[in-house]
């Protein structure tokens, strides 16, 4: 008849009471170990959030820098280029019609990318996701509505300007479909044109092709357009997928068949959806005979660019003339805008990290208080129950002492009983904790829930509608609250410890019971 066995039997004498006590203790122990679990999970989540955002910021910074570097390089390469277009009458709007594209808010679906890669002169402004109002950088902005179409023949005199080496007329038309978009508030909806593909007609002369960058350089399959070719088209990979054709096949565009001569790889955002064809083909196809959207004017040498530009402006004041010099300035402005945005994002990020740290500290101190309360509660439950048990069993204890039990034997008997109660509660606590830890911690600790959303700002920068803005998307991380094996051990350990603490005084009281209590008649 071991002491442990006796303790077990004593506990099972009052089954309901023991059960209730064990459940109560189990809950309090479950909460006790759920709190550290919650804190650990919270810390992990915060860490991963912080890390993610930090990475995102460095990534953005790197992207920005590389974009700026590449753009600068492109500009330097095309210092001789001057772009002309008509100032658009409606720089931003929804939808456009074939042949008369107005400035659209391009860049849909391309947020966060600064493009990069090969800039062909005509695509320069599109390199920024079309985010800038058309015309700002001259023609060629993605969305096709980069300027009002202008009569080609009207500008035939441009090539006679002194210092002009070549003129490359371009017609760019976007084909798309209307989509209905719900406004983010108020339940309004509006129609918007989602671009499907962009037709870019280029004058295919051997001089322009060989001496000026007017065609994509990144051909993945097939071959590039050749001088004088007609009835053929150079598709982007995106177009190829959209039309479902590959090199050598025939594609029907606006009712006319073209042979696919090649596929160009995407080198920047601007030409993801751009297909290239002969200018006259494009004009005929889109009913824009003699009309173009952009004129690329190339000076004889870089030094003449500003002279040519001013001559151009005086000859055709209605034209929006953009030189590389202007672009460089714009780029500088853009760069500083980006830098400001990045800085504010960085600052915002630091503020958020600090706030998160503060929250963590608060959580820790709150958790500490809660743990103190729970430790006290747990040992008090054991204390009261065991005190009650000792009082109730005074006669029995007296008998044990009368028949020769030592104080130590009695004391260890009751200590063991208290510890056994709390060990059983420890098992209950592990069961409860494994199931309910996430819930318990979300109730007990600030900012611990199944998913935390610590940051209202991510570091992604998007340029939409011409206004650089910081994306308000949030970074989230999942707080996975679970009892680790270590915490289960801790649950057990604290059960034993708190059980021992709680039953210390009752057991001492029991040990001090006078043997004469055995004689008491009830």
């Amino acid at each position, binding site marked *: 008849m071991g002491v442990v066995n006796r303790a077990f039997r004593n506990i099972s004498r009052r089954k309901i009471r023991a059960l209730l006590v064990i459940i109560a203790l189990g809950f309090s122990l479950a909460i006790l170990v759920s709190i550290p679990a919650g804190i650990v999970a919270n810390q992990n989540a915060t860490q991963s959030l912080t890390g993610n955002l930090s990475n995102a910021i460095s990534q953005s910074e790197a992207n920005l820098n590389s974009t700026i570097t590449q753009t600068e390089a492109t500009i330097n390469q095309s210092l001789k280029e001057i772009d002309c277009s008509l100032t658009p009458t409606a720089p931003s709007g929804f939808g456009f019609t074939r042949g008369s594209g107005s400035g659209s808010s391009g860049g849909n679906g391309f947020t966060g990318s600064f493009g990069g890669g090969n800039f062909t002169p005509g695509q320069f402004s599109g390199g920024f996701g079309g985010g800038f109002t058309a015309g700002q950088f001259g023609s060629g902005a993605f969305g096709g509505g980069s300027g009002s179409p202008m009569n080609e023949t009207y500008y035939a005199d441009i090539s006679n300007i002194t210092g002009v080496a070549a003129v490359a007329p371009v017609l760019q038309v976007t084909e798309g479909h209307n989509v209905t978009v719900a406004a983010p508030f108020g339940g309004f909806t509006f129609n918007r044109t989602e671009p499907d593909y962009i037709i870019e007609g280029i004058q295919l002369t051997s001089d322009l092709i060989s001496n000026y960058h007017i065609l994509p350089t990144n051909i993945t399959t097939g071959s590039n357009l050749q001088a004088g070719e007609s009835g053929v088209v150079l598709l982007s990979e995106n177009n190829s997928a959209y039309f479902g054709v590959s090199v050598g096949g025939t594609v029907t565009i606006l009712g006319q068949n073209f042979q696919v001569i090649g596929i160009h790889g995407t080198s920047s955002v601007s030409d993801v959806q751009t297909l290239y064809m002969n200018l006259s083909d494009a004009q005929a196809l889109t009913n824009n005979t003699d009309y173009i959207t952009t004129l690329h004017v190339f000076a004889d040498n870089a030094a003449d660019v500003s002279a040519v530009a001013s001559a151009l402006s005086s000859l055709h004041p209605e034209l929006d003339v953009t030189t590389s010099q202007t672009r460089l300035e714009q780029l500088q402005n853009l760069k500083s805008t980006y830098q400001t945005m990045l800085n504010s994002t960085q600052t915002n990020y630091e503020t958020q990290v600090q706030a998160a740290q503060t929250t963590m500290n608060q959580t820790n101190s709150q958790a500490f208080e809660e743990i103190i309360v729970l430790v006290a509660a747990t040992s008090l439950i054991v204390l009261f129950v065991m005190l009650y048990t000792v009082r109730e069993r005074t006669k*029995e204890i007296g*008998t*044990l002492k*009368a*028949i*020769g039990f030592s104080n130590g034997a009695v004391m260890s008997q009751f200590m063991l009983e208290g510890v056994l109660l709390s060990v059983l509660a420890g098992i209950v606590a592990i069961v409860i904790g494994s199931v309910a830890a996430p819930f318990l911690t979300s109730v007990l600790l600030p900012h611990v829930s199944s998913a935390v959303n610590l940051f209202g700002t991510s570091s992604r920068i998007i340029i939409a509608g011409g206004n650089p803005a910081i994306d308000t998307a949030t970074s989230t991380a999942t707080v996975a609250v679970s009892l680790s094996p270590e915490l289960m051990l801790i649950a057990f350990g604290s059960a034993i410890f708190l059980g021992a603490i709680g039953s210390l005084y009752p057991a001492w009281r029991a040990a001090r019971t006078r043997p004469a209590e055995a*004689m008491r*008649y*009830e």
Partner: protein
Amino acid sequence: MSETVLKVENVSKNYALGKRGVKALSNLNLEVKKGEFIAIMGPSGSGKTTLLNVLGCIDKPTSGKVLLDNIDVANMPESQLYKIRRNKIGFVFQSFNLLPYLNARENVELPMENIGKSKTERNARAKELLAMVGLLGREEHLPQRLSQGEQQRVAIARALANDPAIVLADEPTGNLDIKNKQEIVKLLANLNLKEGTTIIMVTHDGHVAAHTERILFLGDGKINKEKEGMHLAKKNICPFCKGKLQPIDETCPSCGKTVRFKKKASPEKDKGETSSDKQ
């Protein structure tokens, strides 16, 4: 039979009860020989229970000596006293005081814990003792499954577990009906007779006391009177025909009369008194 097992010298016990002290025992002397069967009687408040507690080392006298096996236990600290209680004394209580969640055998094994006996030894000893008190085959019964008489037998077996020098019985028959009372008295008498167990029994019941060897009458904390009990079985003489008796006979083989529980020379005191005053 002449070896002194317990000697009480000038023992006094005062209780502080309110402002007035109560003298429960005053200069009490008592000598008990090995193998004696003694009854202590007396009215309520005469100090019976106090005396038993002092003898059983669960209460300390205010003054005097209590020599148990020539060891003065009166001034022994609790750290050693529990060993005396465990090894030298067996307690039998009025309400049996069995642990309700332990079966008969486990209850008997209790005092044998912590004395270096193996589990099998304890087990065997417990079974032997239970057989001795007539509970063979009932070892694994919980107290609630036993009659009151049987429960008291278990308690007696438990008292005998460590071969104590004396068995102290505090009104062992006080809670029993007449039939069980007879059983228990017979059992104690037979134990005394066959095993030579020294028994000191507090009782209110003259019938019960009559079957001991010596009856001590307590009054005002002193032994007022001492009388020889019948303990017929010990004398093996029929009080009616003076014929020879067998030790366990209840009726005389010669005259056929009941020789136990039949008061022949009854003590003068305590007639008709019941055992209700301690409640």
